[in-house]
């Protein structure tokens, strides 16, 4: 079968960093993955999204943090809507936690249901890999076929398009991020970034956080601004306007170094750059929570404000039971958000595997080209 595969090659990763081309990625004929156990089955992707973490990987910019928790060669793709052999359409919850790995007894985090905190990502009968799409044994969504544990499969609601279904996984991440900050009352909040995660976070906040009464979205491009408004942002501003916009909304002051004296109660940083984190810390009120929803990597940020203003910096990775939503799972909530907010509209472009370079380039420059989510379309891919 055909698959896009990432191999461990320092030369290719270095070349990618220099040229901004996806050198680590190769389109190859590969053997389908074996079924690791009885609870596993073959699934055939229909659409598979290109995520920011995928882009970081294929452009050689990913943090070395991931090295011990991935296994080469792997087929990327963890935002997947697929068919099972019996014709059921499913979305995959890609985290490869204890149960899926056959680890028994499961780790304390998995025992508590927090599978995104799994402590055994390198154990069990699978090779290391934090998710499907980063593990050499499971395959990934950028191919004609992969294997998945039955605990990873979520049936797609009747009548849904593939485009809506492929948005469930990123929306689940956004749901988890939206609920990662404490619930308050009459909260002014900020979402920095209006790519896929940013827009999904706006939608998730709009649907799941009635305590957020004013939501300021920071968007760079016109189409992003339009979508941010449609999905529930009350104000949409350019990146260089964020501090003034939050100041206006919260009645605080701006000091000479650009930080606010007051600020927003919650800031979701869906970019993860040094600049966006600095902005987030600058506009967060004393005692506020900054949620890092975008994958950051190496950044240099002055944390003095975080200390002096007792700001909580929280990561939001993947999904799980959400205490703030009565313990309901992020995927279940994401299904509701995708349906109610019509997030299928965020799928802007579909590419066959052969045009992977174009697809990666499009995804890397999506905002400027009026796009949000770029996906591989595997529906016409030859299967064997």
């Amino acid at each position, binding site marked *: 079968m055909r698959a896009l595969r990432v191999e461990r090659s320092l030369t290719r990763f270095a070349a990618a960093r220099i040229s901004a081309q996806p050198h680590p990625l190769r389109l190859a004929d590969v053997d389908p993955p074996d079924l690791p156990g009885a609870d596993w089955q073959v699934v055939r992707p229909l659409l598979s999204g290109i995520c920011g973490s995928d882009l970081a990987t294929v452009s050689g910019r990913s943090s070395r943090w991931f090295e011990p928790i991935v296994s080469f060669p792997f087929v990327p793709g963890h935002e997947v809507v697929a068919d099972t052999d019996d014709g059921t359409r499913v979305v995959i919850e890609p985290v490869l936690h204890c149960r899926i790995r056959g680890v028994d007894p499961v780790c304390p985090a998995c025992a508590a249901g927090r599978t995104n905190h799994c402590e055994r990502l390198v154990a069990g009968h699978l090779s290391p890999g934090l998710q499907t799409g980063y593990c050499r044994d499971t395959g990934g969504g950028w191919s004609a076929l992969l294997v998945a544990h039955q605990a990873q499969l979520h049936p797609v609601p009747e009548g849904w398009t593939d485009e809506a279904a492929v948005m469930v996984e990123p929306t689940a991440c956004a749901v988890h991020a939206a609920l990662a900050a404490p619930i308050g009352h009459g909260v002014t909040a900020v979402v920095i970034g209006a790519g896929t995660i940013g827009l999904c976070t706006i939608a998730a906040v709009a649907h799941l956080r009635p305590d957020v009464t004013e939501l300021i979205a920071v968007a760079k491009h016109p189409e992003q601004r339009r979508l941010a408004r449609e999905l529930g942002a009350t*104000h949409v*501003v*350019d990146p260089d*306007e964020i501090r*003034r*916009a939050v*100041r*206006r909304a919260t*009645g*605080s*002051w*701006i000091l000479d170094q650009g930080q606010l004296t007051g600020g927003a109660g919650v800031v979701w940083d869906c970019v993860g750059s040094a600049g966006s984190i600095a902005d987030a810390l600058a506009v967060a009120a004393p005692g506020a929570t900054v949620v890092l929803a975008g994958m950051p990597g190496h950044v240099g940020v002055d944390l003095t404000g975080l200390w002096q203003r007792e700001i909580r910096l929280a990561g939001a990775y993947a999904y799980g039971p959400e205490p703030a939503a009565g313990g309901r799972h992020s995927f279940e909530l994401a299904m509701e958000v995708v349906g109610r907010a019509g997030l299928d509209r965020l799928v802007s472009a579909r590419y066959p595997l052969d045009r992977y370079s174009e697809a990666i380039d499009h995804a890397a420059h999506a905002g400027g080209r009026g796009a949000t989510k770029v996906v591989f379309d595997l529906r016409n891919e030859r299967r064997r």
Partner: protein
Amino acid sequence: MARPGFVLEVDRSTPPILTWHGEGFRLERLPAGRSRVIYAPEPLKPLDDPDEEIRQALLHPMGDSAPLPDLLFAGMRLTIAFDDISLPLPPMRRPDNRQRVMEAVLEMAAAAGVDDVVLICALALHRRMTEAELRHAVGDRVYDAFAPSGRLLQHDAEDPAGLVHLGQTDQGEDVEINRRAAESDLLVYVNINLVAMDGGHKSVATGLASYRSLRHHHNVRTMRHSRSFMDQERSELHSSNWRMGRLIAASGVKVFQIETTLNNDAFPEQMGFLQKREWEWTARDRGAYLATTKSLSLAPPRVARSIFQSIKAPHAMTSVYAGEVEAVHRATTDMVYRQQLVAVDGQTDIAVFGLPHLCPYNVNSIMNPILVMCMGLGYLFNLYRGQPVVRRGGVAILSHPTPWAFHPVHHPSYIDFFEEVLADTTDPVEIEKNYEARFANDEWYRHLYRTSHAYHGVHPFYMWYWGAHALEHLGRVIIVGGEPRSVRRLGFSPASTLADALEMASDVVGRDATITHLHCPPIMIADVS
């Protein structure tokens, strides 16, 4: 003798006309047979001995006022208020009129044994002046005598303890002014009347007032019913100020008004071509024009701005009157009209306004897009008496680079106004209803206004209201050579050239539309029949 103003009918022999374009100029050829150019009168002859004229004015006041020495006595509280940096434009060479007048007043006060003297810069909601700016206005001697001892103040319209509410007019307008000024035995106001709008009761009722008081006349309704600001008889802005001024007088505040006028000699000799009619340019003028425009085109915007902001005008005093406010102001207004009125026969379909680098609110600062709007539609549009130069439903073509640039210290609330308010609406009524109160009461703006050099939070609203009549009157506004995204944010249409702008205007007023170019500065008032 100075030649009066002049209206040129453009024909095929007319040379290209100098059009201001921010920190630069363009030579524009106007369509023959349907265009005209209004030129300002030449500068009036200045007073031969201004210091002596000032002394005589103080000794022989107008109206029912006693001579100034008779109003001064030992032990009294004397306050001298004076116009801020928004006047004159460009700033005049030293000595400034304010310095001359203040020195004369202080000399008489000293002779009378008056010790309790305080100087107050009548800022209204404008930014606080810097030491250098104050020194330029009042002179080093006055500055050094008063500032170190804290007796040279700048009016603070947000200081509750420094304001006093004198009552309401019969129209329900709150009159709240500077406490020190109101509670003095005598308030001397030192004016520079650059245009007919300045002076009179507006000096105290606006310059020393609070936001609570100012909002009664700085609003959309008043601005739309001031036609124009240069014609006090038809200006609701002035009617309101006059009601307030009379209430101030009735409250027992004794005002001794001193008004001075300037001629319109606005540019130094090396830029003399700016004062001349193009067909009268000498070879030297042409050379100066070419050298100036070439060097400006090579200079970065910051450098060009700095060059223009350094211009000190050779304005000279043409009159000085003192005494009772209304009597003084009538005489002053006559002098302003003598210098600036130009008889213009009827309206036009298209008015062309070249916008210079300077307006009252960007001295030593940046002409941001909101000030571009205010300068074009608030000031130049309103330089008329009778009726606007451009007919109702006509087109205004402004020429200015209109960069998306703001002075962060001077204009912080302007940035927010531009980013937030104008992104939502450009309708003055909506803006006033939905946004003014929040900006006016914003604690951060208030802090910057009181302690830094920032215009008050509400000031950009007033700039927008200033153009409210024009926005209602005009069918379209086009800005030539403006940064497109700034121009669009203002709600106007960008055009690359004047020819393009005229083509665009033809959609509104037809292909044979008449065109009038206001060749300003120097300042003039079109007396439109």
